[in-house]
Every structure is written in structure tokens, then in C-alpha cells.
């Protein structure tokens, strides 16, 4: 069971967790990852832009790949877009499986891959200075470790 949502609404963890647990069926292990807007370097506001339609399709493909590769009972990817302030949730990834290692690995896979494979762009504002975030080499390295030989 796959759930994908890209929305400017704040991410409701209790609702997302309940959805994964409901979709888990017999699967007893639920892993989640939540990304928060960081306040380091004086960032006051983060704005996320996305490519409507293509973003949801990319996230759906990723979730399908994870479900297939780890035999998941459920996978959710919820990504916030628009303007956010430090401490707010940007992204939530949840997985359910009958095996805890599968749930945790698939969760790591999804968060690594969505950083490189889904069309989102971050802009940071510090005071009057707003700039687009540059892609990080570390994100590519993290995503590459999931490549099948």
C-alpha cells in the first residue's frame, strides 16, 4: 500500500503513522524518517519548489521500487512544499514490513534516493538574502549505495 503526498500543509505525524500502521496488515515493524528544517547558518525561512505531477510520479516510482525490493506491506512519502521555518517538518518517510531490518533499510533507501531522484528545489532565506541551495555531493554518494550491482 503506497501513499504519496506533496502539499504545503504541515505534516501530521500521528495521522501518517496511523495510516502506515493501518496499511501494515500483518507487518509488525514500522520505520519512519522525518526531516526538519535546520536553523544552522542563520536560515530564517526555507522554501521548497517542486514540479507538480512529475514529483508525485517520481515519489511513486521510488515507493514502488522499495516495496518490491524489501517486500514492504506499506510505504508512505509525504513532502511539504512552500515556505517553512526552522524546526518544521519538510519530509516524512514511513515503511512497514514483517521484518524490522527490511523496514529500516527501505526507509533509509527512500530518504537517500528522494534527495537525488525527485524534482524539489530548496531556497534559503537569511534576512534579506535568499539563495537556492546547491546540490551536495554527499547526497549522490548516499543515493549511489543503493544501486544494484
Amino acid at each position, binding site marked *: 500500500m503506497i501513499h504519496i503526498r506533496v502539499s504545503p500543509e504541515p505534516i501530521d505525524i500521528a495521522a501518517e503513522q496511523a495510516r502506515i500502521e493501518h496499511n501494515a496488515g500483518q507487518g509488525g515493524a514500522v520505520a519512519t524518517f522525518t*526531516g526538519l528544517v535546520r536553523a544552522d547558518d542563520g536560515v530564517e525561512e526555507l522554501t*521548497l*519548489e*517542486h*514540479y507538480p*505531477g*512529475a514529483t508525485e*510520479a*517520481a515519489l511513486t516510482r521510488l515507493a514502488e521500487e522499495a516495496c518490491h525490493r524489501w517486500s514492504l506491506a506499506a510505504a508512505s512519502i509525504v*513532502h511539504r512544499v512552500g515556505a517553512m521555518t526552522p524546526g518544521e517538518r*519538510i*519530509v516524512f518517510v514511513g515503511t512497514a514490513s514483517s521484518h524490522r531490518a527490511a523496514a529500516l533499510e527501505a526507509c533509509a533507501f527512500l*530518504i537517500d534516493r*528522494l*534527495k*537525488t*531522484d*525527485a*524534482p*524539489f*528545489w*530548496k*531556497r534559503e532565506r537569511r534576512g534579506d538574502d535568499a539563495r*537556492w*541551495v*546547491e*546540490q*551536495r555531493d554527499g*547526497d549522490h554518494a548516499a543515493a549511489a549505495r543503493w544501486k544494484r550491482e
Partner: protein
Amino acid sequence: MRLVYFAWVRERIGVPEEEVDPPAAVTTVDALVDWLAVRSPGHAAAFADRTRLRAAVDQQFVGLDTAIAGAREVALFPPVTGG
């Protein structure tokens, strides 16, 4: 053909999307970008550094050497920085 732009590509061009009708000689994303770059100083600025440009044809991520024959929507944007 519909063009859509994101992030600083969008900002430099000044519009989020536009309709264009490139000549038949424009057969790849690269050639389309060459053709667009002379339309305005904004386009020129957006496309100045081709190594920082990424594309999607009909919402599929592709290399800049990809053919655009029959494409309804071409997206041009910087490397993604999501999550």
C-alpha cells in the same frame, strides 16, 4: 510545445512557463536550449552554465542530448535539492 522552468532557471527567465514552436532543425534538448538562449538576456543567463542544467521531456528525466520529437512538455531546471 510547452516549456516549464523551475528554481533559478525560472527566476532568471522571469516566467514559469511558455509556449514555443521551435524550427524542425531543433531536434534535441541541447539544441532547444541553444535556440532559447538567444530569446532574451534572461534566457541567456538561465542557460549560461550548461553543466548546472537538467531536463525532463514529458515529465521523464533525461540527458540534454535526448531527442524532443513529439514532446508536449519540456522542463528545464537546476540539479534537484529536495528532502
